[in-house]
């Protein structure tokens, strides 16, 4: 890739329509994030149908910008009304809300947007540096490696499940089972369709994602109808503005440490922003000279949580773009969007479709800058979103999910699929399951099946295990899987179980 290529990419990013989509994505993302109950995953799932008629670049720019905006937007309601707008902002509540109660809401909002910006930028830098070499590694992958990669993905998803581990595995394997519905990849025979013609082509990913991520949230939102809303602190005439250089320099180690945690957690499949922000918060508390003051309005607490949850964005895209294993639920949905545009994750994205991929990666820098500017200068406007009545939010989601699912192919079948998955998602959530493993199971299921079929085919069904063990990359993946299987054991031994113990209920 020469300089001209990167100049072309930059030109693409700044095309008027693409620029407009970046602004639109960031603004909508911040609003979605600030609305309690609306998550980044839901926002992208609902708005993805809008991107179908756009160029892949414009669609990806909008979704990436929405992700970045929503990750910060979640902190607005966390700080102002003690309710995290997104699960990733749950740790922000711990110090953000006490700051607001002390009359320092503007300081907390400034810090949340600044740390989100640094976390986001560091995430994109790492994505830019690590994705291309990892994509080249994917060229060494054959069917056995893809099978093992899917198994590793499933194992780590369930191991990091924020709820009961057995249930995490059950949800993941249920997702894989759902993915077997439709045409069998070996002989082309429709399986498990239960005589429903609409299922012959399998379960459409986008409507399924819309249903899984939106309908359970509608039920959560409406459950809060009539509950006493926290009045927001007055932000009238408040100008947030940039922090001083000394302040930024003082918090630079926090930004760096928390961003690294966010990146690593983001890369791990299934471990989302909420885990990252709690881990970073705990780490910051551990490193602090005054850990006892955390929870009383420490600006470092807000900085750590926000830098980590925004760094997750860049991290989550690395395995998604290079190996087809999404790092979190948002990356899973965006992978569905990529596929709709005919782009398959892997080395091809950095060769044949390099222009699209790099336009997307570079647009994430722009998205973070836009998020910073909107955050610093428009935060008081966005704060009003947190006061939207719950029933208005609920009916809005119902409309958007139905119309959005219909828009996928102009077919009511997709709307029924969305509704069916919505009901499934609600039943699972209300019985203590996470829906993220289901989604990742749906994505990883076909990869595992094709990998297994391919392995059996090239090994001629004889000594398959030995055939797999002879391959170095396979051995590495088996090693990773064993480590992932041991994670729950180490977690249960750990006194500081950051995954479960301190996390309050999040929307």
């Amino acid at each position, binding site marked *: 890739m020469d300089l001209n290529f990167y100049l072309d990419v930059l030109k693409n990013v700044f095309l008027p329509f693409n620029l407009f989509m970046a602004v639109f994505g960031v603004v909508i993302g911040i609003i979605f994030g600030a609305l309690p109950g609306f998550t980044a995953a839901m926002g992208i799932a609902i708005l993805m*149908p*809008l991107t*179908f*008629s756009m160029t892949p670049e414009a669609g990806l720019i909008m979704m990436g910008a929405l992700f970045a905006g929503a990750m910060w937007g979640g902190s607005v309601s966390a700080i102002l009304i003690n309710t995290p707008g997104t699960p990733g902002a749950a740790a922000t509540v711990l110090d953000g809300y006490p700051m607001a109660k002390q009359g320092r809401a503007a300081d907390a909002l400034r810090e949340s947007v600044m740390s989100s910006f640094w976390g986001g930028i560091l995430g994109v830098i790492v994505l830019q540096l690590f994705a291309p070499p990892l994509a080249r590694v994917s060229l060494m992958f054959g069917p056995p490696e893809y099978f093992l990669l899917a198994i590793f993905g499933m194992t780590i998803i369930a191991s990091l499940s924020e*709820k*009961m581990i*057995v*249930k995490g*595995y*059950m949800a993941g*394997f*249920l997702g*894989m*089972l759902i993915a*077997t519905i439709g045409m*069998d990849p*070996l*002989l082309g*025979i429709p*399986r*498990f369709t*239960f005589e429903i013609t609409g299922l012959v082509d399998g379960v459409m990913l986008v409507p399924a994602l819309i249903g899984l991520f939106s*309908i359970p949230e*509608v*039920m959560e939102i*409406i*459950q809060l*109808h*009539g509950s006493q809303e926290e009045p927001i602190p007055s932000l009238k005439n408040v100008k947030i503005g940039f922090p001083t250089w000394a302040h930024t320099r003082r918090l630079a180690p926090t930004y760096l440490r928390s961003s690294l945690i966010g990146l690593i957690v983001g890369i791990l499949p299934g471990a989302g922003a909420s885990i990252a922000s709690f881990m970073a918060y705990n780490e910051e508390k551990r490193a602090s000279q005054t850990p006892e003051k955390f929870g009383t309005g420490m600006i470092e607490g807000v900085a750590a949580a926000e830098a980590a949850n925004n760094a997750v964005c860049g991290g989550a895209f690395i395995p998604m773009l290079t190996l087809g294993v999404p790092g979190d639920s948002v990356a899973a949905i965006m992978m569905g969007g990529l596929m709709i545009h005919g782009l398959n994750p892997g080395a091809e994205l950095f060769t044949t479709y390099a222009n699209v991929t790099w336009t997307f990666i570079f647009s994430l820098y722009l998205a973070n800058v836009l998020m910073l500017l909107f955050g610093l200068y428009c935060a008081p406007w966005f704060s009003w979103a947190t006061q939207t*009545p719950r*029933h*208005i939010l*609920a*009916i*809005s989601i*119902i*409309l958007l999910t*139905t*119309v959005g699912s*219909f*828009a996928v192919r*102009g077919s*009511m079948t997709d*709307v*029924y699929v969305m*509704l069916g998955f*919505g009901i499934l998602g609600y039943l699972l959530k*209300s*019985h*203590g399951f996470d829906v993220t493993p289901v989604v990742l199971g749906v994505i990883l*299921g076909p990869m*595992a*099946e094709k990998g*297994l*079929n391919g392995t059996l085919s090239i090994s001629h069904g004889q000594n398959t295990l030995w055939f797999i063990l002879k391959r170095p990359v396979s051995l590495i993946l088996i090693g990773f899987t064993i480590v992932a299987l041991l994670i729950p054991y180490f977690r249960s031994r750990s006194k500081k179980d950051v995954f479960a113990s301190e996390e309050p209920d999040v929307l």
Partner: protein
Amino acid sequence: MFPINVNRKVSLVFMAVVALFFGYSFFYPPEVVAFPRFLLAVLFLLCILLFIRPGDLGKIKVTAFLTRPKLITAAFMVGYVALFPFVGFFVTTFLTVFAYILVFERTARLKGFLIALGWVALLYVAFQTLLFIWFPEGLLI
């Protein structure tokens, strides 16, 4: 309000799903269902594990599952989806939003009317005018 352990029930429901898929798998050639049967076997083992060790998280509040606002919302959602292809986008969307707002805010007629009208206009412009995605016209429009 009394807590009950539901994880055992959940594992039984999953077992029923496994049994359904397993039974159905005999309608297909063995090579077509080899992978699904592997998944079913793993799921079955996990179900047994959950049944034997349901854990503390099996206690959830029964009342949180289906409450009046949730039932109303579910009814509106199913009703909207059911009427959408027959009555059409404009009428169904307008009536659903208007009625839903009235159910939760009995006196907000003008507010409900304006929000309903706003949503119809917004979705029409976004999807039909800009994206050329045509919604069902239905019986009335």
